[in-house]
Every structure is written in C-alpha cells, then in structure tokens.
C-alpha cells in the first residue's frame, strides 16, 4: 500500500496564457460597454451644440434672448426663448410649491412618526405613485383636475399652467419624499437624544435639530425635483397647452420648452429646416438648465454635508 501520491505531470495544469487572454478580452469588452455611457454624453452634447450652432447662423443670439414672441413656425418668425422659459417657470414653480411641503412632510412622517407597519404599506404606495407614467398624469390633469378646478375658478381655461403644475407637483413628490427621508434617516439617534435631554418635545427636536442636520440632503432633493419638473414633458404638453405666452398668469394656455419640442416633432420636420434646428436650440437650453441644477445639487450635498461618525 503506497499512499504517497506520485507526481504526475498529466494531472491538472493551469493554462495561464489562456486565462490571461480571456481575462484581457472580457476586460476590454466590458470596458467598452462602460464607455457607451461616455459616448452617450458626447453624443448628446455634440448633437445639441452642432445643431444649436446651425440655429444661431440663422437667428441672432440677441433675438433669442430678447424677442417677446415665440413664433418660429410663422412667416414672421420670432424666437424669444423667455416666452417658453416663462411657461416652464410657471409650471415648475407651482409643482415645487406643491412637492416641497408634501414631500418634506411625508419624509418626516415616514422617518419620525410612522411605525414599521405603516411604513411597510406607505413606502411601496409612494413607489407606485413614482412609477405612474407621465402620460397618465397628463390625462388626469387635463380631464380630471382642470374640470374640477374650473368649478372653483371660472376664469380657468381648458389648458392652463395651474392644473399641469399641481399634477406635476404630485408626480415629483415621491422623489422629494424618498431623497429627503434618506437624508433624515442618516441623522444619528444621539442628536435626537441630545435634544430630548435638553427638554425638547418631539417636534422641537425635529425642527431645530434633525432637519438642520439633514438640510444638505433635503435641499439637494428639492433641486433635483426642480430639475425633474423642468424636463417633464407629457403632463405639461397635455394639460398646459401649446400656446406660447409670456408672463406669469397661471390660468391661460402656455407652451413650455418641452411642449414645443413635442409640437414640432409631431409634424413632419425635414432635417436642416429652421424648425428642426430650433428644437435643438430649445433642447440645449433645457439641457443646460437641468445640468446646472444637477451639478449644483451634487455640489451642495458635498459642500454642506454634516458627517457623523
């Protein structure tokens, strides 16, 4: 009985070269996949800049900023982008005025007051609300909210910024709620206990200790919500109308930047036409606005985050 294993070179031998080759292949392929996201950004920025450049060959930049009409499809075309921006500002302001209190209070409810059972029911329901497609919200705004509001506000027109903004606000509430709740949740228990030890009631602890400690996260969630509201398309296209008007009146039909892009896209617009270039100029404006807000939001969190360890 010889239990000594005999050395046998025909036993398993690692093929190190094959391993290295397959490793390199996989690494290259997956790295290329990761680069697709970079290519997407380059594609977006490149496309927008290229067509915007073409646009400003035909329309002076000064007119783009100062015209007080938006009539790019008419023979006497005018290109006052602030007409569209004023519309986007109206719907977004109303939306944030709704989403800020609702989302913030909902976040406080979920993290401070709700028991585990309530959370288990309410959180998935908020996720359902967040997952409703925007065209469904558009239907709701146009055909339910507007008629309802018209019974209180007779001067409200069929298409208006008010109901679009209200429903837009509801649609971004889950975003504010969930991001703010994360920020509030991250505030350590010891801070609350400290507040209680000083004799604060629960509300006093929340308002004067927890919320200030979570402020960077809350503010960044609101900035992201603004950015989302500016880029939202279907609610404002369906419920706010397609009628460019400068001003602040929320009761009349308006046309947001996104609604203009949809309006032009629904018609047949040949490449190279001025209308085609115009949607890219509007798209660039929209892209820059949301990009600045997104970067500001990231910066804000980094700059003002309180660290507790």
């Amino acid at each position, binding site marked *: 009985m010889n239990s000594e294993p005999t050395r046998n070179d025909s036993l398993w031998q*690692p093929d190190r070269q094959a391993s*290295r080759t*397959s*490793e390199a292949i*996989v*690494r290259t*392929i*997956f790295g290329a*996949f*990761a*680069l*697709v*996201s970079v290519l*997407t*950004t380059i594609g*977006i920025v490149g*496309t*927008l800049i290229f067509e915007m450049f073409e646009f400003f060959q035909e329309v002076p930049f000064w007119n783009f900023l100062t015209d007080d009409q938006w009539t790019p499809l008419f023979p006497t075309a005018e290109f006052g982008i602030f007409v569209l921006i004023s519309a986007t500002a109206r719907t977004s302001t109303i939306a944030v005025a709704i989403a800020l209190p*609702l*989302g*913030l*209070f*909902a976040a406080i*409810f979920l993290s*401070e*007051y709700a028991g585990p059972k309530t959370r288990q029911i309410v959180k998935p329901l908020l996720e359902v*609300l967040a*997952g*409703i*497609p*925007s*065209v*469904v919200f*558009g*239907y*709701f705004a*146009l*055909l*339910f909210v507007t008629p309802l509001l018209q019974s209180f506000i007779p001067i409200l027109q069929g298409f208006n910024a008010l109901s679009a903004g209200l429903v837009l606000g509801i649609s971004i*509430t*889950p975003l504010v709620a969930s991001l703010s709740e994360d920020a509030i949740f991250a505030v350590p228990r010891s801070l609350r206990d400290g507040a209680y030890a000083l004799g604060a*009631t*629960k*509300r*006093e602890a929340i*308002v004067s200790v927890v919320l200030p400690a979570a402020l960077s996260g809350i503010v960044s969630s609101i900035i992201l919500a603004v950015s989302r509201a500016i880029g939202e*398309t*279907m609610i404002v*296209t*369906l419920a706010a109308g397609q009628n460019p008007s400068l001003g602040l009146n929320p009761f009349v039909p308006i046309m947001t930047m*996104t609604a203009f*892009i*949809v309006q032009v*896209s*629904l018609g047949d617009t040949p490449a190279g036409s001025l209308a085609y270039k115009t*949607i*890219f100029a509007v798209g660039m404006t*929209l*892209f820059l606005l949301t990009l600045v807000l997104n970067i500001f939001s990231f910066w804000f969190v980094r700059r003002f985050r*309180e660290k507790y360890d």
Partner: protein
Amino acid sequence: MNTPNTSGSSLESQAAKFEVDISSRYRTDSIFKTLTWLAISIALLVLATLIVDVLFDGLPFVNWDFLTNFPSRKPERAGLLSALAGTIWVMVTVAVIAFPLGVGAGIFLEEFAEDNWFTRAIEININNLAGVPSIIYGLLGLQVFVRVFGPNGWFYELTLAIKESVYQLLVEAFGNNSMLLQWVYGLLTDADGQITGVDITGGRSIITGGLTLALLVLPIVIVSTRESLRAVPDSLRLAGFALGATRWQVVRDQIMPMAFPGVLTGTILALSRAIGETAPLITIGALTFISFLPENLQSPFTVLPIQIYNWVSRPQKDFHDLAAGGIIVLLVVLLVMNSTAVLLRNKLQKRF
C-alpha cells in the same frame, strides 16, 4: 459646525424665549404631526383618485376587441393592437441592448476597474446622465439614429461612396467582365441591381426607438448591477482567488450567480421605466396612428403611451374614455412587471 453661543446676553434672550408651558408645546406638536400625516394622505389620496377616475372612465372599454383591434377613427371600433405589438417589439429590443451593456459596464466598474480618474469620470458621467430629461434622449435619437444612421443619412452616404469607389477600383484593375467583378457587384448591390449605401436603422423605426430607450435606462441597469455586486461579500471573491481562479472566473462562476436576482430586478424596473416613456419616442418621430403590425426592426411603430397621448389629445369624449382604457392596460402591464421584480427580489435574494 455650530459652535454654542456663550455670550451671556444672548443666553438670557434665549432663556426668555423658552416656552415653559408644556401643554401648549404638546399642542403644537400634535398639529405638526397631523400635518405630516396630512401630507402623506394627500399624496396617496391623489393616487387613489387617479386610479378610480381611470377605472371609472376606461373599464367599460377594456375587452377582447379593444386589445385585438387596430386604431380607428370610430371610437367604438378602435383598439390597441398595433400599440401593444409596438410596445412588445420595442421592449424586447431595449432588453436585448440594455441588459448586456448595462450588466457588462456594471461588472467592469465594480469588479475590474481600478479606482482612478477614468473610472471616477465614468461614474460622474453616469450620475449626470440619470438626471438628463428624457426628451433630450429623444433629440439624441433623432439626430444620431434617425439622421446619421438612417435612410440617406451621413452613414448611408459614406458606405455608398466606399462601395462605389471599391467598384471603380475593381473595374480599373480587372476590366469590366471578370468573374471577380460579377461576384463583387452582386455583393454591393441590392435586389434591383443598384449600388446602395447601408441604412442601419431605417429611420423612425423600432430599432431607433429601442436604442434610444436603451440609452435612457442604461444608467438604471448599471447602478442596480453595481449595487447587487457590492452586496456579495468580499470573502467569496477572496476564496475564489485563493483557489487560483482568475478575476473573470470568480465573477462568472461565483459572484454573478449570487448577484443575479438583484441584477434581474434592476433590469425589470428599468424596463418598466422605459415602457411608460412617451416624450423621447414622439421626438424621434414614432407614429401616432398606425394600422398595421411591425414586421421587422426597421418597421415604423407606435407604443401604448403614444396611443394614449393621441387619444387624450383628441377633442371627443369617447376617445378620452378609450385613453382611460389604454391607461388601464398600461398600468396592468406595469403592475405585473413590478410585482415580478418584487417577487424575484424577495424569493431569490440571499442574505449574506
């Protein structure tokens, strides 16, 4: 950060502000609590109202004919067939493109990439992409997939020019009647015997829509892949390396099977985001009225949300109710997808 203010006068003024009356403070507390409760109730009440409103208007229209008829100018005969078919085609395309790309990129960033400026740039880029409005992706798709890679686009012209010059070169080198030339000519020409360029997307087609939406949801797939990979403990990787496996072998045989339920859940959630997207598809020029079924990836198409948009934007009440019917179908599809994702997450996910 907040240094306590120790100057005496300020302390006194703070003390003067202190409300001793505990019962009135508790009253404020209960009002505050009611407000938070009210906020969540309003949000959920709107959700309930929306669903009841849609069901009330649309349920009478949802039947077998509604699912199997083409859209029509007569509301009583209009159906969702082409939109349903278009949605299925586009979603399969999105899944086939976004799943391998997103999972591969996620694996690369989480398992292979070193922590250097390049990786960080990609991460920042993915974060930023997630915040780009969806309609901007529509503009990207319109320019790149419809114009550049579409019929008579830049890519078409390029390939046409290449083919023509290859043909010219061969004619000069071998004369007009050589066997080689006949064979190459067959390769270069279409069915009509014309030399044509290469049209990849066919313009405003299913593949264009699928590519556009795939790019849109790619950040979601990448992020969820990374999170699932991160949840697998390092000890498993180290054990694999200790046995002599390469990094790719460890990822393929040990880590991915563990992370797969999470990856799948993330992908389904990404698809459920894509299925409700309307704006980018309108921007690339998907049709709003279509009464035939798509035949291949280059066919024109419509999808459920666009059909709903089309019906809502008509003035007649009957079409509005049809839209509600379409919304019910869309919401049911979403509900099925999301509950599948949640079930997968709960059933398959292991805790470490």
